[in-house]
């Protein structure tokens, strides 16, 4: 049956058996989601506006609704059932509308399959790390696919029999090359996509467009349809239909505790100046895909000398191929920022933490006011981009010393009238401007501020004075300028670990907890970022951080373990 042809110009092209065509490129028009199937597994296939083709498990992790009925907004896929959003490339969940005040507390990430667009087709593999080998580059011309309700082996056998007058070579268990003996320069590739146990999708590719395309397409279509009718009449379909199988989720998704975020290595792809004292860095992953992040997220950057610094991610939902951070070089800067500004060059490698989400953005507000002071713009830039992408109303107010010190001025111009800049204001003018821009609080209004402590104080005080409740005022400090008083000593009880730990004077709760063998993530370790917050079950915390707001501090239900202590002899933590 196998009439192997003599070596032809195509002979090195042995297709990788793990890869299958799952759609035609034309099946992915602008902002569409295509429902594919391969080896019994349903796939949601969609193209982001930047061209990236995503091939995912066809279900929302929340309640199993097919994502192929979801909405492609160009950068994220939104589930129809509860509006959960998943980022292009990483498939990480970026937003859960039922809890707008929280970042998704766990790293909810859909399953991503490797995909590639080649020869007018979308190819995918169900197993990771299988190298793709395609046909040689060329002007491939594809006929429309024909669906056979029969197993792939049966269909391929029929095609091989039908093709007996041609010379035939198998390129993989699911692909063959045909050449007419009479016209060996014309090559036809037949590809079988085993959708499931009883369904096979057949595609034909020619190595160049035929002179009379319409006649050729009709001819091919007629051959396949005739063959299909014969096969389906012979063996009625339906007996062997495999239901898509869903593997259980990884255990960490079912557990409330967040898994330890894995580190990442990135290349500095670009470094450029975005203000007199600010550099921007474009960070690309050395391998693989960057995890999804939400607006307001920060990362820890480990510098060549081992120091760790926190920087906010400035990208919007459509910037998932690389991350951008802004680094300010201050005259009396600690080593970190100076080292990035002066020593880190394009091409250098940096080690990063996974994104941390302690400054979440609500997307259910009727009005979102973003107030930035200088380099404090960075997290708010990500928020502004997300709000613009989602079509939510927002205002971005940026305070800076002068035009030369206004960071990301070019990006800001892109926001048009949503941006207002305030240059060279003294504290009194700043105060007045904040009062005017905030106005009295209305239903569903939220303000976000990041910048120097003076600006954050001014905004929180003014907002409170104007009747804004604490839960509507969100801020992020870069550092905690308070002097930490670590002279007290007390007893910690870790309820879930059933451990009692003594915290002596001069030792932080965080170090005492870690010395007892209980792991707890941390980032800035200065009481600013909120990564090491823990729930308090009993006792009175002595708050020394700048992360929790006044209401949260008063309630005493959580504590920032890196700097805060206890006012009671005993503190019971949910750890």
């Amino acid at each position, binding site marked *: 049956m196998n009439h192997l042809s003599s070596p032809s110009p195509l002979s090195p092209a042995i297709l990788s058996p793990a890869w299958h065509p799952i759609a035609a490129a034309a099946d992915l028009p602008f902002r569409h989601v295509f429902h594919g199937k391969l080896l019994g597994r349903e796939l949601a296939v969609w193209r982001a506006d930047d061209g990236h083709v995503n091939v995912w498990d066809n*279900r929302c992790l*929340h309640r199993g609704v097919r994502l192929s009925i979801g909405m492609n907004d160009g950068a994220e896929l939104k589930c129809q059932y509860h509006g959960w959003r998943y980022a292009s490339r990483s498939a990480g969940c970026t937003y859960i*509308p*039922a809890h707008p*005040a929280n970042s998704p507390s766990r790293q*909810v990430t859909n399953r991503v399959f490797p995909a590639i667009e080649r020869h007018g087709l979308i190819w995918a593999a169900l197993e990771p790390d299988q190298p793709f080998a395609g046909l040689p580059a060329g002007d491939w011309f594809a006929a429309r696919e024909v669906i056979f309700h029969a197993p792939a082996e049966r269909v391929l056998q029929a095609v091989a029999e039908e093709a007996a007058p041609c010379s035939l070579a198998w390129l993989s268990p699911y692909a063959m090359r045909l050449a007419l003996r009479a016209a060996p320069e014309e090559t036809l590739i037949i590809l079988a996509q085993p959708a499931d146990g009883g369904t096979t999708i057949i595609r034909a590719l020619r190595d160049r467009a035929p002179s009379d395309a319409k006649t050729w397409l009709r001819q091919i279509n007629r051959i396949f349809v005739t063959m299909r009718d014969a096969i389906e009449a012979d063996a009625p379909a339906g007996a062997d239909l495999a239901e898509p199988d869903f593997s259980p989720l990884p255990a960490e998704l079912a557990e409330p505790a967040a898994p330890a975020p894995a580190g990442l290595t990135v290349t500095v792809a670009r470094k450029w100046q975005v203000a007199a004292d600010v550099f921007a860095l474009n960070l690309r992953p050395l391998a693989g895909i960057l995890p999804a992040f939400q607006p307001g997220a920060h990362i820890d950057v480990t510098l060549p000398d081992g120091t760790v610094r926190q920087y906010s991610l400035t990208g919007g939902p459509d910037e998932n191929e690389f991350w951008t951070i802004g680094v300010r070089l201050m005259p009396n800067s600690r080593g970190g920022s100076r080292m990035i500004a002066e020593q880190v060059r394009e091409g250098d490698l940096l080690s990063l933490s996974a994104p941390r989400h302690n400054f979440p953005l609500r997307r259910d507000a009727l009005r979102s006011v973003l107030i930035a002071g200088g380099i404090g713009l960075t997290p708010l830039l990500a928020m502004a981009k997300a709000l613009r992408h989602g079509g939510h109303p927002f205002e971005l107010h940026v305070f800076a010393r002068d035009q030369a010190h206004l960071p990301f001025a070019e990006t800001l111009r892109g926001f048009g009238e949503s941006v207002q800049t305030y240059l060279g204001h003294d504290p009194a003018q700043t105060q007045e401007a904040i009062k005017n821009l905030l106005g009295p609080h209305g239903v569903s209004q939220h303000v976000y501020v990041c910048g120097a402590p003076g600006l954050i104080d001014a905004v929180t005080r003014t907002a409170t004075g104007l009747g804004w409740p604490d839960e509507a005022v969100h801020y992020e400090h870069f550092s905690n300028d308070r002097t930490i008083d670590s002279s007290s000593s007390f007893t910690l009880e870790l309820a879930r670990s059933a451990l009692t730990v003594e915290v002596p004077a001069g030792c932080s709760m965080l170090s005492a907890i870690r010395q007892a063998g209980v792991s707890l993530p941390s980032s800035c370790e200065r009481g600013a970022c909120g990564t090491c917050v823990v729930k308090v079950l009993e006792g009175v915390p002595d708050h020394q951080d700048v992360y929790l707001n006044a209401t949260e501090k008063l309630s005493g239900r959580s504590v920032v373990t890196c700097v805060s202590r206890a006012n009671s002899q005993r503190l019971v933590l949910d750890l």
Partner: protein
Amino acid sequence: MQTTRDLVYDNWHPVCTRLAHGAKTLRTLLLDVPIEAQAGPRIRRADTGAELPVLERFGLVWTTLGRPDQDLFDVPEFLEPDRRNLSAGPIGVAVSAPRAIENFLDLAHFPFVHTDILGAEPHTEVKDYEVRTSEDGREIIATGCEFFQPLAALTAAGGKKVDYIYRVPHPFCSVLYKSCFVDPSRMDVIAIFAQPMTQETIRAHLVMSMLDDVHSDTEMRRFQQTIFGQDKPILENQRPRRLPLDPRAETPIRADLSGIAYRRWLSAGRVTYGVIPAQH
């Protein structure tokens, strides 16, 4: 032989509204068994011809294949004389009964599935609410649920914050109580009684008991049918179609507290029909 009573098999299930005298025989399925319903009402198995017990409640005819050890649950509001009791079903859905019940308990989908009726973006937040199991363990009750709704009912004028109470007194039946705009001291009652035809197909019997003197029966039925018509394509696109009871199978959040309790309750009751039991 059934040795212990099965929460599904030995329970009452809805079949149809009361059939008029001389109406055509209704042929349908209950738990994969073909049954026939006639005026009377009389219901028998179509495979063995055996007569089945019949119960009339909430405007529907109920039957059982097994030996129920108790009467059907009660919804006392149906007996209040000034209420209008209407049925707006049945609607066939290619989904398991528990998936349909879990959807009925869900608030978070309102802005996305019932857009501009039971919810609207950006009002997407689900506030924390309470879920408990009744003292005898026979029923789940969710209280303190509230949601912003643009058009909560035909009697609601404009957007309102609406309070909900949910009951699950039967593995495949749920009853909700929601703010009534005619009489703020009382609540409208809407129920879904799922008839499990097979493990993955149901007939959804929708029943309501409303305080509304203005709208016609047809208007009120259409309102419920519109709502359920919006749920149907979502339900039919859930995979797997059966409700997975393994906590690792899907990703619940705080807003799903009632769904979490429902899944646990089904597990505890050893329900196997229409679910994928957790592997222990």
